[in-house]
């Protein structure tokens, strides 16, 4: 796993000397659906070395020959204006470490934006590599009363031209045949001119020769946009879509999540029933199955999230949402497209971090990634419910609103505002070097995505989520379980300390109290003492490091609650066992407030750290995120404790 995807891809690309075909094209030109049609679900994603730019490499077999297909980041130009774009140009020129130029290029152009796209085609043709132009959306061109004579277009360009409708798979077979003959592709007799004005003249002459008639305006898009981008109605629809988005992610997924939970509960039950050795049963049932269950329980929600994103993206609403939110995001130094990433982070920071791939600027990507863990993810919810239950009387009301609900809303607001501030700070730091990237975003016409393309997009995302998370979470839960359950205690030793080996609750409490984790809890006590945490809370915070929601069960176990899932009563009666506060209640209002705020800021999620490492291609950024969030969590928790103590006292 540590080898990383890109190195694997590179090896197969260079080491075995398979023909390497690179796909170039503007965003929205249908490049990805052609890539998917050629490579199926076998694409590998990774990063270009040293930069936060995603790299997609896949394989395809045509006849007896295998080909490596590389999907380059979508671009409007081969003249780079940022380090991320420079990487793509370096790939094309074979300047990337240990790699040669691709053997041949496929340029995808949207037939409805041909006038603009020819500039990119001209730049690609000047590279002098075997090139085939793939024209997409010709059906839409015809539908909007446009026209293009593809044969004449081929003649005018002097390179092979193919018509492909990627999302319907039309023309893919012919494209495969064409790829197999890449060695015989014609090169243009004369490369297109480099001088801007001459390029325009060249483009116009090509269009005239190919009898190009630009498409009429897309009627549906015009009518829909008149509502969806209307100053008032547009905002209303936007908030309605967002509400619906969350309703679906949380309510539709909830029963499915219950099934997953029940299933894993049943599996653990089987393990407990059939494995006699308490210790082996615990390791297998609680640690391993519990760990995998903790990941899989989020899968329905995350698949739902990816499905909605793929759908809204495919239809074209995401760029509208980004357009509407751009001004708001600009306040944090970001752009509209970062909104989608932060929105997804409400469910889980991992899809949020993965969604930053749509951001063209690496600086924006990093700033958004640093902010994403602050958004209130669904793993924090059970912890907040428990702590708010300890802090606020369920009957307390302010006007028509229950105070518990208001505090919960406040926690969500705290997360969102801190995320914006964090993004702003990281953007400021990043912008000290280098020029600002100009902001531009194409507004594609509304298009009905094929079921297949939506499912493929969803499948890709869900697959990489599972691959990235399962290992890291399983390893962390097993490690934490070992910390919480070692060293071993013999029955004689238990009896000597007045614990009945037959009373499993008493044994569990004794084991936890004398575990290595407890030793760590005592060891870090001086750090958390100012926040009012005792060593038992420290154990809970430590166990939350694999997944936040385990805090509830761990505290329940530590407090020897009858029902570890509902430990509120047992926690209320807990007192400090030693030190200057011995005998005083542990969960006082200031301490609970400090805990709440600590959970709002701390990066207690190994999976997020793992995904950040993947997406940024190194340990630097996940370590920065972990460091700053943990430090911030302590400071903010201390502030919260002080403020609540002042108000209460």
């Amino acid at each position: 796993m540590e080898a990383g995807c890109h190195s694997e891809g590179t090896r197969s690309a260079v080491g075995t000397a398979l023909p390497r075909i690179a796909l170039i094209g503007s965003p929205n030109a249908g490049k990805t659906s052609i890539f998917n049609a050629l490579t199926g679900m076998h694409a590998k994603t990774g990063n270009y070395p040293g930069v936060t730019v995603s790299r997609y490499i896949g394989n395809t077999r045509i006849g007896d020959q295998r080909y490596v297909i590389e999907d380059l980041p979508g671009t409007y130009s081969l003249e780079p204006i940022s380090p991320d774009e420079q990487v793509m140009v370096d790939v094309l020129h074979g300047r990337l470490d240990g790699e040669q130029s691709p053997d041949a290029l496929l340029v995808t152009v949207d037939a409805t934006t041909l006038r603009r796209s020819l500039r990119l085609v001209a730049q690609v043709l000047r590279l002098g590599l075997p090139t085939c132009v793939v024209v997409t959306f010709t059906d839409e061109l015809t539908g909007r009363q446009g026209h293009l004579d593809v044969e004449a277009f081929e003649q005018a360009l002097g390179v092979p031209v193919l018509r492909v409708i990627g999302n319907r798979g039309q023309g893919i077979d012919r494209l495969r045949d064409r790829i197999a003959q890449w060695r015989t592709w014609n090169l243009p007799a004369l490369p297109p001119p480099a001088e801007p004005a001459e390029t325009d003249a060249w483009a116009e002459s090509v269009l005239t020769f190919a009898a190009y008639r630009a498409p009429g305006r897309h009627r549906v898009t015009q009518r829909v946009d008149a509502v969806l981008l209307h100053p008032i109605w547009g905002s209303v629809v936007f908030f309605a879509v967002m509400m619906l988005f969350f309703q679906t992610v949380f309510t539709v997924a909830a029963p499915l999540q219950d099934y997953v939970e029940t299933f894993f509960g049943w599996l653990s039950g089987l393990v407990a029933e059939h494995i006699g050795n308490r210790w082996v049963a615990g390791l297998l049932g609680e640690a391993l199955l519990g760990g995998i269950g903790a990941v899989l329980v989020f899968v329905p929600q995350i698949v739902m999230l990816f499905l909605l994103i793929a759908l809204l993206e495919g239809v074209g609403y995401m760029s509208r949402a980004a357009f509407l939110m751009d001004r708001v995001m600009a306040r944090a130094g970001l752009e509209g497209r970062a909104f989608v990433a932060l929105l997804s982070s409400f469910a889980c920071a991992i899809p949020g971090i993965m969604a930053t791939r749509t951001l063209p600027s690496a600086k924006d990507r990093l700033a958004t990634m640093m902010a994403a863990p602050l958004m209130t993810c669904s793993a924090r919810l059970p912890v907040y419910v428990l702590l708010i239950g300890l802090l606020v009387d369920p009957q307390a009301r302010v006007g028509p609103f229950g105070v518990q609900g208001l505090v919960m809303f406040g926690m969500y607001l705290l997360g969102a505002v801190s995320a914006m501030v964090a993004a702003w700070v990281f953007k400021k730091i990043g912008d000290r070097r280098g020029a600002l990237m100009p902001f531009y975003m194409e507004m594609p016409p509304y298009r009905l995505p094929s079921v297949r393309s939506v499912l493929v997009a969803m499948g890709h995302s869900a697959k990489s989520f599972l691959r990235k998370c399962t290992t890291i979470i399983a390893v962390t839960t097993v490690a934490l379980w070992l910390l919480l359950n070692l060293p071993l205690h013999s029955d004689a030793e238990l009896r000597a300390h007045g614990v009945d080996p037959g009373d499993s609750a008493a044994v569990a409490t004794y084991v936890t109290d004398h575990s290595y984790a407890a030793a760590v809890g005592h060891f870090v006590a001086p750090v958390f003492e100012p926040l009012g945490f005792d060593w038992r809370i420290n154990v809970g915070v430590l166990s939350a490091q694999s997944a936040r929601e385990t805090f509830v069960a761990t505290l329940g176990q530590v407090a020897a609650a009858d029902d570890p899932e509902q430990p509120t009563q047992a926690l209320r009666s807990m007192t400090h066992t030693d030190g200057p506060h011995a005998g005083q209640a542990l969960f006082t209002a200031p301490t609970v407030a400090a805990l709440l705020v600590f959970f709002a800021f701390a990066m207690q999620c190994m999976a997020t750290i793992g995904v950040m490492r993947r997406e940024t291609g190194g340990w630097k950024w996940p370590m920065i995120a972990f460091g700053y969030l943990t430090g911030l969590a302590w400071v903010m928790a201390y502030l919260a404790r002080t403020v609540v103590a002042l108000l209460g006292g």
Partner: protein
Amino acid sequence: MSLLADLPRGHRATVVRVADDAHPATARRLEDLGFTSGVEVEVVRRAPLRDPVIYRVKDYELCLRRAQAQCVLIQEAA
């Protein structure tokens, strides 16, 4: 000659050139996006908070922030 950023909604104009004081990288990218001399451009719509703005150029629509639209010099059609 005026600036694209000041063109009211629904109006059309012809691009003269990208301003000389624009950052060279921004200027190059604006040209690659279609804002080259002699091309017709139309203001399609403004975002609810006035910025960014959707323009129609070379048969497609894209949005720019005011900062970028200020770099494009235009000649409004008479």
